[in-house]
């Protein structure tokens, strides 16, 4: 079993515990073991705190990486924002020895030294590279047949590709393949590459952008919108209702985090996966429970 330090970040553990539950329930079936990082803080976030002071941002991120270095394992993140912060820190401090020295001067105040021995991996790449699509397919007991999943990559999973090392940002395939492994059908809508707009402080921009994106999802008649980032999830769950109202549209494609889909496909019942907390509930998924009940009878 491959071990990783689990860096859950802020949003998923606090706002979306159902996502954390799904991750912890599904990964052991793929022979991936998560070790908790005691004393971890916010990554810190690459939007707000990074905007205040990049050096402090690097120092706190390096401290989080030190916790994994103490355990001698690589870090796995479940949030694209945390991945961005921790990966950027890893690469920047590897490339810039003077910056690493400055960061270590800060860390010396708390008796720590950043070495750069723990790599940062997004959870989508960990299941792809450590388990593989075939092992995911083999773990599925309740294939999500005839489920159309629109794909939203978000930005920080893929870009900058030199740092993230996840996939080709102009024509990625990882999420499509992860969805296919569940027996479902991925749908790449025409605005698949757009950003969720969360970081932008002029709300007209994300509003118009989400309107275009959700319009193309709606045109595809997808059953759900597959997400891999909790920030994007918030934009498309809470935000979809706002956009539908603002533009008088009939949007209703529930956003679903990938690992909750995986959990369902591995046989965890719908009602245990916390979907009732969502603004748009993916009730279309309930039919896979019925398939299971028939199979078990």
């Amino acid at each position, binding site marked *: 079993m491959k071990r990783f330090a689990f860096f859950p970040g802020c949003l998923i553990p606090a706002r979306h515990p159902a996502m*954390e539950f799904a991750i912890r329930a599904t990964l052991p079936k793929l022979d991936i073991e998560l070790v908790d990082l005691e004393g971890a803080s916010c990554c810190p*976030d690459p939007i707000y705190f990074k905007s205040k002071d990049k050096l402090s941002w690097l120092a706190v991120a390096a401290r989080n990486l030190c916790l994994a270095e103490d355990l001698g394992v690589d870090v796995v993140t479940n949030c694209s924002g945390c991945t961005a912060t921790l990966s950027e820190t890893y690469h920047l401090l590897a490339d810039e020895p003077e910056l690493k020295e400055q960061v270590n*001067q800060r860390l010396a105040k708390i008796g720590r030294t950043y070495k750069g021995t723990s790599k940062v991996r997004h959870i989508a790449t960990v299941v792809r590279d450590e388990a593989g699509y075939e092992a995911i397919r083999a773990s599925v007991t309740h294939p999500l047949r005839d489920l159309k999943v629109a794909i939203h990559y978000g930005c920080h999973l893929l870009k900058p590709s030199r740092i993230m090392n996840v996939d080709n940002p102009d024509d990625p395939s990882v999420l499509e393949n992860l969805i296919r492994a569940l027996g479902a059908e991925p749908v790449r809508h025409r605005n698949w590459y757009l950003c969720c707009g969360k970081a932008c402080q002029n709300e007209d921009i994300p509003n118009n952008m989400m309107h275009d994106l959700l319009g193309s999802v709606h045109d595809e008649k997808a059953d759900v919108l597959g997400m891999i980032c909790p920030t994007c999830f918030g934009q498309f769950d809470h935000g979809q209702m706002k956009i539908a109202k603002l533009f008088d549209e009939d949007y209703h494609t529930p956003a679903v985090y990938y690992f909750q889909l995986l959990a369902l496909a591995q046989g965890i019942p719908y009602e245990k996966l916390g979907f009732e907390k969502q603004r748009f509930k993916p009730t279309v998924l309930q039919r896979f429970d019925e398939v299971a009940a028939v199979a078990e009878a």
Partner: protein
Amino acid sequence: MTSKNEDNDIVKVDFAFKRLLAETVEGDLANFCYQCGACVGDCPAATYSEDFNPREIMLKVLYGLEDELLGSESVIWECTNCYACHERCPQQVKPVEIIISLKNMLAARGGAPDAVNKVITTFETTGRTVPYSPAIDKQRAKFGLKPLGDVPMDEIQALLDSTPEGEVT
């Protein structure tokens, strides 16, 4: 007859501002920009706003036009932080990083937007961007998850303090 130097249309480069920008992490990369515009095509903010154009921001950075970059008409907070410009830039200028460096300069003057300051303060006081509440642990318990762990704030606050060790503040 006026000399060229007295012509008001000539932009004077503000080197002092550029030196300050270069002191921020990766702020020195701005000088490699040759204004090709590769950053514009994929920029979601440029697509959806007439005011925001990363090439124009970089041009103002090259000139050091502080008022336009950081003044009341500043557009830097329209950036969506998507990193498409970082991906596209043939000079590896990382325009998004320059924009974040500009935000660092603005924040140092207390000029960050209120919504942004709110999240920053939450992080600086709790070590998280989502503040802790007992309701969170209650929700977590429903999924069989452990309560949120403690963040050692003494360590975080020591790291946020830029004063070198041993120096009296």
